[in-house]
């Protein structure tokens, strides 16, 4: 019902006349009569703004899951987003801009992306990062494609420590590219790194840090292995872990990807998030997506611009190694703001608080009869349990008590049924204690 078009009847008439037309239908004469929708769309008329509010509030209220105290992770975490970040990230100049094709009027977005790239590169411990991809999974797909393009090889080794849905996305897109994905199994929580029997050397080795069981992998071994066969090492890293852990780049990774939801974006039922992508300088001409670089304007003032554009689909077309056009700039902006808000000390403290809560919660749950560690490798902010009842049942029972208990593990993969439980800096001791008490009842 609100009319988002400004045209008054008088103006429409005047404009039609200027076009030499006598009615709105005549605007569409190029469309063959047979293809015209006779009675318009089969859809109710528009609603007023307050009516839309009522309807969307009704639907939102039907998601009581949004009120559960969250112990679920699996790549999406319940972190604090402070007021300043929310308000800055939603400034309409950022929200309603397009891709910065005209740098003279897009320095705001460009500089935010330049800062974002710097931050992502630092987290990764690599020299360069792009201006965002869709999400962690698609960044991983792009990393595999980059590796294949860089090496001319088609085989990609994929640790089963990578989140199952990410691997599933990898498989989907491999149907097009024809990559040969070789799964590498886990052993006691971490990737078991033999060279697969089949002798084809890989374009890349893909590993997650921490992996989806929450366990910390030995990135250096993965990198050495990859480099030993002239392949690349790709690490899917949780950016929060950079608060405490040595960076993947430092340990030898050539490409680091990740899910950026962690910084500045609420859980949002899974999106929009932001795919982090960093690489060594050696790969910069194969970098997917957009890249912002610093330069100067005609008066020598510092300025920013998208650069190495020749890589991109709009110029390289069928020869481009990536088709990404629209990306996730606004989420990248929020990421950069949130990380700047955290700052050097805050990032470390955030990671430490996650690790402490994880340890506290893990010990408390393991004290419950019948609850056992699924694996024994060290964890940072997520851990996996073996349960005496199906994990889906535990999740349902705990939801009734007000908790989202975790993410049930891919059945079959780990011998036993398991549940991955995540603890962020938002979880208080009181919440964890209450969760433990409910958990105890739920596994009976």
């Amino acid at each position, binding site marked *: 019902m609100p009319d988002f078009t400004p045209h008054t009847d008088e103006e429409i008439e005047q404009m039609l006349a200027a076009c030499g037309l006598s009615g709105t239908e005549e605007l569409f004469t190029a469309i063959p009569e047979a293809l015209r929708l006779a009675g318009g769309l089969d859809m109710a008329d528009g*609603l007023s703004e307050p009516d839309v509010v009522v309807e969307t509030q009704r639907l939102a209220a039907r998601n009581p899951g949004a009120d559960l105290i969250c112990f679920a992770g699996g790549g999406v975490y319940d972190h604090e987003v402070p007021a300043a970040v929310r308000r800055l990230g939603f400034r309409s100049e950022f929200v309603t801009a397009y891709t910065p094709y005209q740098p003279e009027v897009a320095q705001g977005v460009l*500089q935010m992306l330049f800062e974002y790239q710097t931050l992502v590169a630092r987290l990764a411990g690599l020299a360069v990062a792009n201006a965002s991809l869709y999400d962690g999974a698609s960044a991983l797909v792009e990393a595999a494609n980059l590796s294949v393009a860089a090496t001319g090889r088609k085989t990609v080794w994929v640790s089963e420590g990578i989140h199952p849905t990410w691997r599933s996305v990898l498989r989907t897109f491999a149907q097009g590219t024809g990559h040969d994905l070789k799964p590498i199994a886990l052993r006691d929580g971490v990737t078991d790194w033999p060279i697969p029997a089949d002798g084809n050397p890989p374009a890349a080795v893909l590993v997650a840090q921490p992996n989806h069981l929450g366990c910390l992998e030995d990135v250096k071994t993965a990198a050495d292995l990859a480099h030993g066969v002239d392949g690349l090492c790709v690490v899917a890293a949780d950016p929060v872990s950079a608060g405490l852990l040595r960076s993947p780049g430092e340990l030898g990774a050539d490409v680091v990807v990740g899910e950026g939801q962690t910084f500045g974006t609420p859980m949002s039922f899974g999106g929009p998030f932001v795919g982090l992508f960093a690489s060594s300088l050696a790969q910069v001409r194969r970098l997917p997506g957009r890249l912002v670089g610093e330069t100067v304007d005609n008066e020598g003032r510092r300025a920013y611009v998208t650069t190495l554009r020749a890589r991109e689909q709009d110029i390289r077309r069928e020869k481009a190694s990536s088709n990404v056009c629209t990306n996730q700039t606004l989420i990248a902006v929020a990421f950069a703001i949130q990380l700047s808000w955290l*700052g050097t000390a805050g990032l470390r403290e955030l990671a430490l608080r996650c690790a402490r809560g994880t340890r506290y919660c893990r010990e408390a749950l393991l004290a419950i009869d019948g609850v056992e560690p699924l694996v024994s490798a060290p964890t940072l902010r997520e851990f996996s349990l073996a349960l005496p009842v199906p994990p889906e049942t535990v999740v349902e029972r705990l939801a009734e008590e007000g908790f989202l208990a975790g993410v049930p593990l891919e059945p079959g993969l780990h011998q036993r049924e398991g549940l991955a439980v995540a603890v962020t800096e938002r979880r208080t001791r009181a919440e964890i204690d209450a969760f433990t008490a409910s958990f105890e009842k739920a596994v009976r």
Partner: protein
Amino acid sequence: MTADDQTRANGGMGATGRSIPLMGRDSEPTIFELSAPGRRAASFRTTDVPEWPAEDLLPAGLLREEPLDIAEVSERDLVGHVTRLSHRQYSVDLGAYPLGSCTMKYNPKLCDDAASLPGFTNAHPATPEGWTQGWLELLADLDARLCAITGMAAATLQPPAGAAGELTGLLLMRAWHAEQGGRERTKIVIPDSAHGTNPASVTLGGYETVTVPSDDRGCVDLGALRERLDDDVAGIMLTNPNTLGLFEEDIAEIAAATHEVGGLLYYDGANLNAILGVTRPGDMGFDIVHMNLHKTFAVPHGGGGPGAGPVAVGRRLVDFLPGPRPVRGDSGWSWQTPPKSIGRVHSWHGNALALVRAYSYILASGGDGLQRVAERAVLNANWLRHRLRGVYDVPFDRPNMHEFVASTGSLKRSSGLRAVDVAKRLLEEGFHAPTTYFPLIVEEALMIEPTETESLQTLEALASALERIAASPEDAAAAPRTTPVGRVDEARAARRLVPTFDARAADESDRLS
């Protein structure tokens, strides 16, 4: 003193940048230059969790020795920094943005509110379906509405952008042809006016691009198309209206000819805005349709994203769709993956909050409102073409849809005025520039899409500005003069690559391998 000078001048400790706003038209230092050791903005919830030191929690070998350097700023300086940067950014909320193909319409604020409801934003995507029935209902209803708009049978909402939708569509084609059996098809036909994502997606889909030329009407050359169609062809990708803003009048013949050789038709929905409620891709014969919700359905572009690129398909392709999808059962909505699904194309449910925005826009617009969108988008574009046809070349000067392509071809020859000059001059007149040098088949192209949300008065002002620009070509070289920075040296950015703040400090010879 520029920020650079200051960085150099600063010998002491602490932040090197100074914070002064745009009104001085000075450049803004990076957040790293505003940083001073020990400053902080962050604070954390009191949790009473034991405060074990890091060394007790993690193996020593994994721990970094020094905290990772991020930046150390106060909330005040962070807010100042980002607010000032926002003043160096053009946006739809500031003015018209006639960027062809991009559909930079005004996005109603009610959609922001809808997407900010805690019942949507706070839901973890792995929450069991019984606890997120509102989400599933919304997604299913959006799916149904998008199908009603496009004339298709079912959709996936997972693809996070148009290009992701294209690739999804091509994988659907692949799966479908595989099931049909027979010799593997290897080619996808694409017109020479197509957007770059189309051929790039084709390659990633494992196909080869076959280009079909446009005829002198600016449409697919039907004869040339027929020559290219054979049983190697998996399908054809078209946008209709095409990137010249022209409706492919022969679409029924194109569809018949493609189907005849067993190919499928893919609709690149970037231009769907033009035909809402007027005609539907499904009725034209398309088998697969992606939509750019960030163009047609008022998801704001966010400076480059996020968007959403749902893909809707005809009945025979429904079983191949990515999954899971929301399905209604006796006890409510549940997630189900179609039997022959190509698999996931997103780790969760797509850009969910962007989907809420589009949904609320569609609810507010309704069938009547969406049709008005198309009518007025087309009216605005035709009016503007009529106003400008004597001033700029209009290579295909016939009734257009929501956009049209002009050219400075003649002006370049007579006075040296290029498309890029028009763009930069327009920036200093207070408008965003049209898309330039696309589609590739028009020299010095200016692709102009006013969108339906701009008023006649704004169009008048835009047209006057474009007239003034054509009349004073001598002003072009110095433009833009009123923007936060002057003409930016793009060549230097590529030559001396500085992709991060840290690269600034590094030795230049090290920069590029």
